[in-house]
């Protein structure tokens, strides 16, 4: 549950999680094991095609929710069930409470239902109606007795150790319990079996609701859902309207992805399909009383939203939490209110409101790991940013963010500011190109990495000198997009880029009117300013006659290519122009390796250094560029040694690392350690932001790991 009142309180909570060693180790082990088992589970399948099919089918279903509900109701009632629609959480709870009263039920067994968590159903049944409710999913039972919320969608008690469970079970049984997990599970089996015997009512969720036949499908490993839906004389299933699907086929298709994505299983132990009212010896006339309760709680409105309707594609596999580097460190209690992980940040806003969501939603580093594996192909990081922007609109922009927006909209003013910074930093400037100490505006928490100083001369001022002579009939006409960091902080990376393609039949241009790509604005949720900056950049490059817009910054590249289209592609005034612009954008490694096609022969024959690599999020996932930089390093004669978790975020995330320095620090420490363990002395990467982060971290940790942009090595090694 998320109850922090402000960002400061939220940060404090996060720090407590970060200090929880058990949680950290459990999550780390899980994250690494999960990646392997998921890959294995999908290895013989066309994963992307399956995800596309699910997305398409779910979108189609979302567009006809009302019709599917009506059909479901008609068919289910034909077969003896009763179907209800609740407009919000309160109404859903009341409907279920009333059923319990009407049927004279005293004790209830429940199998896991996220929707019931969403409505806080147990509170109503227990506190208002004095009923006994027992969760029967082992993890849920444990956290119910501890009075906690789930910390993971699929493994709700992942934050607890066996010792904690043992102590809890000792209390519950009144008998001393040991620490053996198998024995503890047996205790639960026996204790819960008795609860099943006593129960009058069973409450389940529903993973699928099939309109054509009014059937529901339940997915479980433990088998408790089967007992919950079989033993008691009354069965109530509570589901979100988003679970409606036209035919059985849709459910079977989702079933192919759901367990694989959740835990790397091909299928769960049990999948239960229930249609209508079945035989039940405990019921009066041998027929079970069956009620299906559908929850709206904003879902119908959401289904009509052109941007956010894709949220309904979620199948609740929890995979977006499994791969999220932030979730991995802070756990579900700090990364979600009730729904957790990437989807949790989004759903919290829609189901639980701005107040609960406003701090949480900032805690996404935008690494894109969740988007890559989502079973419904939801653009999770994109939507998280969109929500952040919405909240800014609702709550008003904080001062720093409006200030930055105002300044960055005006290129000349922004560049002037950077030039002033160069002079202003003088007293803090060390000889090694780092700041000696941090400017006052930073909190002490930021001291985990050394920060670079602004360069003496920005790249734009060097351009006249470093630009290569024009080629008469060039093979490629390229315009450089340097991004602010490579222009003002690391101009040497831009120079190296120019250098690395000398004598390659390339005509280079550098449009002076280009400004920051605008990603930092987008990250802060300043959409209007981000859009204005995008237009300025587009116009700056329209003045050139280029085939490619080359950028050596992965983040700029992915922002220019995808987000510009998102921001301007719908506007008829800009649609074709922005498409032409985005199509030309290419990253450094892809250009060198795939377009220019440099070969081994282009590089020195001598053996190069041992290097390792960090794959920037916006390159490996944002642009799906995975092999080009690795091939380049090998062609250039470098001894490439792979690091562990090369594609996990380094923790930079632009303004994110300023907002959540403790998380950034942890990610960075891991990154540097993994690089050191590879045995390489040098780490190369494709993004100046990552260079800044990792170099600053290595320096602070006092290691001799050298960190460079890949272009610098390519320039050095060319013949």
């Amino acid at each position, binding site marked *: 549950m998320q109850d922090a009142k402000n960002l400061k309180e939220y940060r404090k909570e996060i720090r407590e999680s970060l200090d929880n060693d058990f949680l950290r180790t459990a999550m780390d*082990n899980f994250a690494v094991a999960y990646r392997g088992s998921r890959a294995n589970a999908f290895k013989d399948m066309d994963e992307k095609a399956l995800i596309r099919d699910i997305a398409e089918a779910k979108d189609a279903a979302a567009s006809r929710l009302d019709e599917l509900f009506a059909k479901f109701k008609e068919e289910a009632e034909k*077969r003896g069930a009763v179907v209800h629609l609740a407009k919000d959480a309160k109404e859903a709870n009341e409907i279920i409470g009333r059923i319990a009263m009407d049927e004279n039920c005293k004790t209830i067994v429940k199998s896991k239902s996220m929707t019931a968590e969403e409505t806080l159903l147990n509170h109503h049944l227990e506190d208002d109606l004095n009923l006994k409710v027992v969760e029967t*999913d082992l*993890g849920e039972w*444990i956290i119910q007795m501890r009075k906690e919320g789930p910390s993971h969608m699929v*493994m*709700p*008690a992942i934050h*607890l*150790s*066996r010792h904690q*469970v043992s102590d809890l079970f000792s209390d*519950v*049984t*009144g*008998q001393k*319990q040991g620490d053996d*997990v*198998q024995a503890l*599970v*047996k*205790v639960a*089996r*026996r*204790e*819960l*079996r*008795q609860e099943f*015997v006593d129960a009058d009512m069973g409450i389940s969720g529903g993973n699928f609701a*099939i309109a*054509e*036949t009014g*059937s529901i499908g339940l997915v479980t*490993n*433990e*088998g*408790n859902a*089967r*007992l919950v*839906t*079989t*033993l008691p004389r009354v069965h109530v299933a509570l589901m979100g309207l988003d679970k409606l699907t036209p035919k*059985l086929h849709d459910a*079977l298709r989702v079933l*192919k992805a759901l367990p694989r994505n959740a*835990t790397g299983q*091909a*299928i769960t*132990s*049990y999948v*239960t*399909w*229930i*249609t*209508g009212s*079945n*035989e*039940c*010896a*405990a019921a009066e006339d041998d027929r079970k009383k069956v009620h299906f309760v559908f929850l709206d709680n904003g879902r119908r409105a959401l289904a009509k939203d052109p941007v956010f309707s894709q949220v309904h594609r979620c199948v609740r596999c929890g995979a977006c939490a499994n791969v999220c580097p932030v979730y991995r460190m802070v756990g579900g209690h700090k990364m979600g209110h009730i729904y957790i992980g990437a989807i949790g940040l989004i759903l919290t806003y829609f189901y639980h409101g701005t107040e609960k969501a406003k701090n949480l939603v900032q805690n996404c580093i935008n690494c894109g790991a969740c988007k890559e594996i989502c079973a419904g192909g939801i653009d999770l990081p994109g939507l998280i940013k969109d929500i952040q922007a919405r909240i800014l609109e609702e709550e008003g922009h904080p001062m720093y963010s409006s200030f930055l927006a105002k300044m960055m909209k005006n290129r000349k003013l922004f560049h002037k500011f950077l030039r002033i910074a160069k002079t202003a930093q003088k007293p803090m400037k060390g000889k090694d190109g780092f700041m000696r100490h941090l400017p006052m505006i930073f909190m002490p928490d930021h001291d985990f990495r050394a920060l670079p100083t602004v360069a003496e001369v920005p790249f734009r001022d060097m351009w006249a000198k470093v630009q290569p002579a024009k080629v008469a009939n060039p093979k490629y006409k390229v315009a450089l997009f340097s991004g602010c960091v490579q222009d003002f902080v690391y101009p040497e990376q831009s120079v190296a880029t120019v250098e690395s393609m000398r004598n390659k039949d390339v005509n280079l241009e550098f449009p002076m009117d280009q400004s920051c790509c605008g990603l930092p604005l987008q990250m802060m949720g300043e959409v209007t300013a981000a859009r204005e900056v995008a237009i300025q950049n587009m116009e700056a490059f329209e003045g050139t006659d280029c085939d490619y817009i080359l950028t050596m910054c992965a983040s700029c590249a992915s922002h220019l290519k995808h987000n510009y289209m998102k921001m301007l592609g719908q506007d008829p005034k800009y649609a074709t122009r922005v498409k032409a612009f985005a199509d030309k954008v290419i990253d450094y490694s892809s250009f060198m390796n795939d377009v220019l096609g440099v070969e081994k022969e282009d590089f020195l024959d001598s053996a190069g250094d041992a290097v390792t690599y960090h794959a920037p999020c916006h390159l490996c996932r944002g642009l799906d560029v995975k092999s080009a930089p690795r091939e380049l390093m090998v062609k250039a004669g470098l001894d490439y040694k792979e690091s562990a978790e090369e594609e996990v975020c380094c923790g930079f995330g632009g303004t994110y690392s300023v907002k959540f320095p403790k998380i950034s620090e942890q990610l960075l420490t891991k990154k540097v350690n993994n690089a050191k363990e590879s045995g390489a002395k040098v780490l190369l990467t494709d993004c100046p932001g990552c260079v800044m982060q990792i170099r600053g971290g290595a320096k602070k940790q006092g290691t001799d790991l050298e960190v460079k942009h890949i272009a610098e090595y390519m320039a050095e090694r060319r013949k």
Partner: protein
Amino acid sequence: MTAKAESVKLFTDKAELVSAVVTEISSLDEAYKYTMDLCGKKEACKMLISGCEQNLSNTAEQLCATKTGKTIVAPALAKKEAAALEKQCEENGFTLIKDSVRNHLGGIDIAFTRVDHGIAETGSLVLNCPNEELRLATMISEVHVAVLPKSKLVDNSYELESWMEGNMMKGDYTAFITGASRTADIERVLAIGVHGPLELHILLLED
């Protein structure tokens, strides 16, 4: 390999991956014999149903006392088959429970069933069980022995669509069963049998 042999192999591999025990048999008699052996082999201490050896609360403890002797349940068998099984149970001194499975929630040693289909892709059994006795038997027993005729094996779940939809035209309860009941909720350690059977034995019947 013939297509069928391939499906049998895939099914077996997948089911064994989730610790089901798969055996090929050529007659139902073999199936009864297998079940008798299994029941006989269940050690004396396991006569107490799973979990009873633990430190339990008083109420949970009471449930353990409801069980006497070794029990087998086999609802929804054809008359002739049920008679054959019963005869074998008598010879071996086991009790065959024929109805009111609900009265045995403390636990039953073995549930013996014939299932409707198998899905090779995932090693799953498919059991149509609107009959409550049958449904319950496969949930509360410690061991589930399921006979699956090879002719009922399909490659993937899509092939069962029209059969399932047919069932769903009326009230229906159908289960996909893959391996034993499992959980990883405590420290992600895999533990078997949290609610359902602790063992799943699949007898592939040549037909």
